[in-house]
């Protein structure tokens, strides 16, 4: 039996706040977010980097948190989870559009979809359907057939552009 792993004190910048954790070095970012920081909005479907359910944004880029170690992403790296997507109590247009179109059926892939879609819209405010398909191709969904998800991203993109204009 292997000895227990050493622990490290780390500061993570999550959803705009510096948070201190003291965790085994091998514990994944997914586990630290869910188990040590109680940010259970981030989901897990495989813990092997296959399904995309655990995607979070790090410095604006989608990262599979099940394959990331917190030691790589200490503050000032900026981590955004689904809990940090809303503007206070006001949902992000993506959150609203997913709820409106039934793009979240069981809702389990949804946080990863939302964050991946946010990274897309930040880079391409008026994405084509092909760009949406490509951006979300690493996020599996078993409920929707993806159609309502594509439509929700397009709806949110339009509303975001209107808000800017």
């Amino acid at each position, binding site marked *: *039996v*292997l000895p227990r792993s050493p622990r490290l004190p780390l500061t993570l910048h999550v959803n705009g706040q510096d948070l201190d954790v003291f965790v*085994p070095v091998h514990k994944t970012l997914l586990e630290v977010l*869910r188990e040590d920081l*109680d*940010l*259970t*909005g*981030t*989901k*897990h*479907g*495989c*813990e*092997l980097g*296959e*399904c995309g*359910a655990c995607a979070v944004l790090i410095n604006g880029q989608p990262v599979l948190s099940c394959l990331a170690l917190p030691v790589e992403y200490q503050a000032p790296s900026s981590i955004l*989870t*689904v*809990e940090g*997507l*809303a503007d206070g109590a006001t*949902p992000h247009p*993506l*959150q*609203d559009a*997913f*709820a*409106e*179109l*039934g*793009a*979240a*059926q*069981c*809702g*389990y*892939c*949804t*946080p990863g979809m*939302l964050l991946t879609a946010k990274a897309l819209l930040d880079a391409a405010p008026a994405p084509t359907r092909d760009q*949406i*398909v*490509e951006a*979300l*191709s*690493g*996020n*599996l*969904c*078993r*409920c*929707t*057939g*993806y*159609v*309502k*998800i*594509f439509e929700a991203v397009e709806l949110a993109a339009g509303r975001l552009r209107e808000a800017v204009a």
Partner: protein
Amino acid sequence: MTVVAEPEFDVVGTNLRKPDGLPKTTGAARFADDLKLPRMIFCRLLRATRPHARIVAIDTSAAETLPGVCAVITGDALPIKYGVLPVGQDEQALCTDKVRYVGDAVAAVAAVDEETAERALDLIEVSYAELPTYLTIEEGLTRPGEPIHEGKFGNAHRAVALEFGDVDAALAGADHVFEDTYFFQGNTHLPLEQHACVAEWNPAGKLTMWTSTQSPHYVHKELAKALGLREDQVRVIAPPVGGGFGGKLELFQHEAAAARLAMLTGRPVKSALNREEVFYCHRGRHPVLMWVKTGWSSDGCLLGMDFQSFVDGGAYTSYGAASLYYTGALQTVCEHIPAYRFQGVRVLTNKPPCGPKRGHGTPQPRYALECHFDSVAERLGMAVLDLRRKNFLGPNAQTVNHLRITSNGLEQCVDIVDHESKFAERTGRLPFGKGVGFAVGAYLCGAGLPLYWNDMPHSAVDIRLDRSGLVTVSCGQIDIGQGSNAMLVTVVSEALGARPEQISLVSADTDLTPIDLGSYSSRVTFMAGNAAISAANQLRNLLVNAAADELDVPVDELVLRRGELWRRDRLGPKLTFPELVKLAESHGGALTATGSYKPPRLGGPYKGSGVGPSPAYSYSAAVVEVDVDPLTGWVTVDRVWLAHDIGRALNPVLVEGQIEGSIYMALGEVLMEEQEFRGERGPRVLGVHRIPSMLEYKSPTTFETPEIRTFLIESHDPEGPFGAKEVGQGPLLPVIPAVANAVHDAVGVRIDETPITPEKVLKALESAAKRHGPARVPSYPFPRLIKVAPPWESVAP
């Protein structure tokens, strides 16, 4: 008197937002594995590494002394056998005598964290004595040796033989007789959420279990049995479920183990499965080998059908007895079939148990039938739609196996997908490599019978009105993503005359909510919906009667809609909902009502007639357009047109979502998904899943999403809630055979075996018969036929 035109409905037919929509997009929805209780510890299971072996000894002593381990248990802590069907009490939470598939649990550890529990599992020594392994239908039926379970017929778990009318005479009198053989490969649900549960024991004698399940009720019953507790000592709560599709419909080993460990340690215990374990839990689509023979008149009328199915069950019963019957039950609900014979056998094999997956036992025969009909049209030299339209059953009919058909929008579904896709004009006329395929399907709106025989309601809804205007709706139903929460809000607000935002739902808690059997067999809208209407109508009457007394006007002069009551002649002030509730409470006391629903007594006068009856059937038709690359065999689905007879769309956007999801799942099944085990094709480590990961078990991604057009046909079912029928499962059925038929239209080969992989397309293109599929079915001594007269010949009972 001023007459103001009012719409027929206020909420029904609108795209009401799901009440759980925002919680699911903000991370607020708490799934089972998101729960955390004080002093909670973690359970992991030790699973068998052999497909079929006697347990000689288990040594847990080293695991027990590992620091951080709270308890270790083996089979003697949970010896009671259980199963979801009364005829299938063959499972144990931890095996005592032998293991029957790789992945069967033999021991469980609870420890301070998952990592410690995993380390403890490594310290447990199990010695096994190997037994003969059965991995295929053929091996199960023919290989000698100790069967997987004790039984009269070896590994032939269950067999059925039914005949309605005289099939031999019908075939003998036919102008044409055709037969075909098909194989439908097994596949699994692959919900994004891995099963998880938390168990808590109150030493006063109450166990609470939060678990990701589609049926709190069946888990409640099975868990009490497995633990040896009275049912009133067990409370099962289902948090939001992250996808089910039939895979979370019964008690699983980790749930019983976590519960027992909570009772032994006095601490809350969480058990969360990893993805590999989910593949081994399975209970998914049965692999089925099928043979069909039909007789036809020269002008294309179907005269009789003979059907056999050989069902690969895996190692336990699960829902399998019902699954077997479903492979023969719904062949009859689309076409008029004057004579029908069904023989089937479910064979036990040393693989994870199969069970219900979306369409439960019916997608396999539907695939066989729809491909067969396409091929028959070709052999008869008839246009496929001409042949099909000649034989449709229509509404208000009886089938040869005594199923009652009421509303039936199939022909409208066929017309619209044909018209929109230009199927009839294009089939057979597209360039080589391009093709269109057509198929239909039908599904239950809830099984007519519960899993265990009883005369009680299948669903009940309590509604309580508070003087604040709050409407609390309680029902045992669980929303697994299909939108049943939105359905209840829609139905209750419409029937009661309340606004949707007044409604608070309490769901899926066996201590707090009245019975609902679960989210399976597409039953929740029909059954919980009707129960809710009944409860809402009772309360509506109390409210309107109180107002009529108070205002001294006849009841039918009052209108209650959208949370307000007014006189039809618009005289006097409106009453708000809270004012109305206060008035009614003052008149008659606190306001609460319960409604319940039980399907009408349906089904024919024969043993086995319990599978197939439903208060209504949904119908679908699909056209699929494909591109097949003849050099690589690669099949790309470009477009799908799907029309579904929904009865009435309570919420069109959610109905569309169910259709799109069904199409997606069908495309995965027909093109890529396979639950496959080592040893089925040559000796290796026997019984190990070949691809238990989301990377290698291929499922469609965004890239494989075709252009989808959906059409809703509203046939207004006479018994459905506001005329509604199901949509969660039916639309999957026609898509699978429509793809196979489109491949044939594109490159002229019949792929009579799912999934339709590039290898199979190439093999078929290279073969003389231009076909890939099974050559024959085994010869099996089916039991003596139960002969049943068709309803049109039988004397009224």
